[in-house]
């Protein structure tokens, strides 16, 4: 079985990784241990912070556990973080980091000439790099490659090794050990800055990293290595930067969303013709949003373009879920990875009456009932999130998942009594990130609500009634009827009963099973609930 590696680059890459983490939580990567590297120039980026917190929360829920099968949180995620350091003195912009003003006068003149040939002297060479490469991919590719090679050299030198360099080293060590059995999937956009700069150079940078660190004794053989990525074209837009904002040198270059379609076209032409890309990548998944992009900064107060930092925390979009599903396809496919040249993968979704209509088969295909399995798993976690947040009211600070343990106690099922309140709070927090929460009585949509809102009024796996956003509607929600298709509703349970009642009866009569490979009390508890919900949903998976 191949070892799985994920690399997320830039803001969009981070949001794709967020979707990937939620796919892991619903149990799409059964029995797998996945190594994840976040790669960015912007250490404080809001999307990066959000996904790293989410993975850390995932790992706290999984604490002490192992990979399992057919349950929630079934895979084990190991997170490594690397960022190129542009915050220290002399590292703020291209001119400083490349030391254009050092060396002999002749060297300085030569360096300046070659820099001016490719990079605008006044703007590109002097903007603040700490917020990413701002759609300057020609500069970004060079600097990201440089950042990773610099880390390798520091590790070989053995002095002043930064934490992020050590984490990159650990990730690459695992990649090197996996050898031909490694499958590496890279998340990032091709229309923006950091991701677009990095996707073409990452395989080569990793190869050179290994070569430098092993002093030439080891490498990556691209004819055998399995790299895959997304060709994620523009799907969102934001405010155009005004002249006032661009007046300062550090902000002289700001990504302009109106150029994203052009950037995407240029990038696609590059990927199609570049021999290095064609050699390194076995699969490229072409994902886009062929209708008008929605603005991501409508809710922000500022008139300025957000260039990066903690405030860059865009809402989730369905294309990111599709990118995560592409990773699922890449990790689970049993053929098509022994090609000499990149294969392109794409599919279309029904678009009518001005909206997309996503069915359960549009995410992970329909071979071997994969669509049903996906719907069964994501429906189970969404139902559980609603039980925790809505029925047990964790969204408003009540017990949430602890209510299940109380219910088990009431039914004399006492094996879960050792799960602490703090552990229950962690699971509740995950559901808040996944579905929704209330912050000071204000409704805050979580990942799945955000994804669904990008498709509305089109269809998306679940009934639109499964997404209420106010207290009175939430109170009326029947958690057993979230699917569009009535055959997947929980059983009514006979006269004077209700769906929740019949679900609890299933919970009482079922338990964790041996083939789920669950070990810790928390894993057994989650597997037990998973079984009760998936049995209630009645998908025919065989």
């Amino acid at each position, binding site marked *: 079985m191949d070892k799985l590696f994920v690399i997320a680059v830039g803001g969009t890459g981070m949001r794709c990784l967020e979707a990937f983490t939620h796919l892991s939580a619903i149990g799409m990567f059964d029995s797998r241990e996945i190594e994840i590297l976040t790669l960015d120039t912007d250490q404080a980026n809001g999307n990066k912070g959000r996904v790293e917190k989410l993975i850390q929360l995932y790992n706290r829920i999984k604490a002490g556990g192992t990979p399992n099968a057919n349950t929630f949180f079934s895979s084990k995620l190991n997170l490594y973080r690397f960022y190129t350091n542009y915050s220290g003195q002399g590292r703020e912009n291209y001119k400083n980091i490349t030391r254009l003003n050092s060396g002999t006068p002749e060297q300085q003149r030569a360096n300046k000439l070659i820099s001016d040939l490719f990079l605008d002297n006044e703007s590109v060479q002097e903007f603040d790099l700490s917020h990413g490469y701002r759609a300057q991919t020609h500069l970004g590719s060079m600097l990201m490659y440089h950042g990773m090679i610099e880390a390798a050299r520091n590790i070989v030198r053995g002095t002043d090794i930064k934490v992020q360099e050590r984490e990159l080293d650990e990730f690459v060590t695992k990649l090197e050990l996996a050898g031909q059995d490694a499958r590496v999937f890279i998340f990032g956009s091709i229309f923006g800055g950091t991701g677009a700069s990095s996707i073409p150079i990452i395989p080569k940078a990793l190869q050179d990293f290994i070569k430098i660190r092993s002093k030439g004794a080891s490498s990556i053989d691209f004819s055998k290595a399995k790299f895959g990525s997304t060709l994620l074209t523009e799907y969102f837009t934001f405010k155009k930067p005004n002249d006032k904002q661009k007046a300062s040198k550090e902000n002289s270059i700001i990504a302009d969303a109106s150029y994203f379609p052009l950037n995407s076209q240029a990038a696609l032409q590059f990927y199609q013709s570049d021999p290095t890309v064609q050699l390194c990548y076995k699969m490229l998944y072409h994902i886009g949003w062929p209708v008008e992009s929605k603005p991501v900064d409508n809710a922000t107060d500022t008139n300025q373009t957000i260039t990066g930092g903690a405030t860059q925390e865009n809402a989730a979009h369905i294309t990111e879920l599709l990118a995560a599903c592409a990773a699922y396809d890449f990790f689970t496919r049993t053929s098509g990875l022994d090609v000499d040249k990149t294969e392109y993968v794409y599919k279309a979704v029904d678009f009518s009456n001005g909206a997309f209509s996503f069915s359960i088969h549009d995410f992970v295909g329909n071979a071997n009932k994969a669509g049903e399995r996906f719907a069964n798993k994501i429906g189970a976690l969404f139902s559980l999130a609603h039980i925790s947040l809505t029925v047990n009211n964790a969204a408003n600070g009540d017990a*949430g998942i602890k*209510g299940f343990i109380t219910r088990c106690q009431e*039914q004399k099922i006492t094996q879960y009594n050792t799960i602490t309140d703090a552990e229950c709070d962690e699971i509740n927090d995950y559901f808040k990130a996944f579905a929704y929460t209330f912050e000071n009585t204000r409704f805050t949509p979580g990942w799945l609500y955000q994804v669904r809102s990008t498709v509305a009024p089109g269809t998306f796996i679940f009934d639109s009634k499964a997404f209420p956003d106010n207290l009175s509607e939430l109170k009326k929600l029947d958690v057993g009827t979230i699917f569009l298709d009535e055959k997947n509703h929980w059983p009514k349970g006979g006269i004077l009963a209700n769906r*929740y009642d019949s679900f609890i009866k299933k919970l009482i009569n079922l338990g964790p099973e041996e083939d789920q490979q669950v070990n810790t009390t928390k894993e057994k508890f989650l597997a037990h609930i998973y079984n009760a919900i998936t049995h209630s949903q009645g998908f025919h998976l065989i």
Partner: protein
Amino acid sequence: MESITAYTVSVIITLICLFIAAVIANLIKFEGGSKPRDPRIRKVYFWVFCLINPILIFLLGFFVFMPDGNRRVIGNYMMALSIGTVLGFFLYILLGFILSRIFTNGKLGHWF
């Protein structure tokens, strides 16, 4: 003979009360939330029927099943009815406890 009637009435009414309590327990839905009230409601209904049971045995035994006969027959019947009432009370609890243990993970498990 009259004693057998009194004891039979006691047992039948006890079983009927227990059956009704079990039906009610199953009709009460499982609730969500951090402090579900359904286990407590089932318990309350069980003990309410536990109190109704001897009253019902005695009243039905006295007004409906009282045999015709001399004072000795009536006296024997009343003695049997009194014992049957007390026995019915304890039988209800005993059978309720056994059912509660048999269906310990279900709704009847809330009785004890």
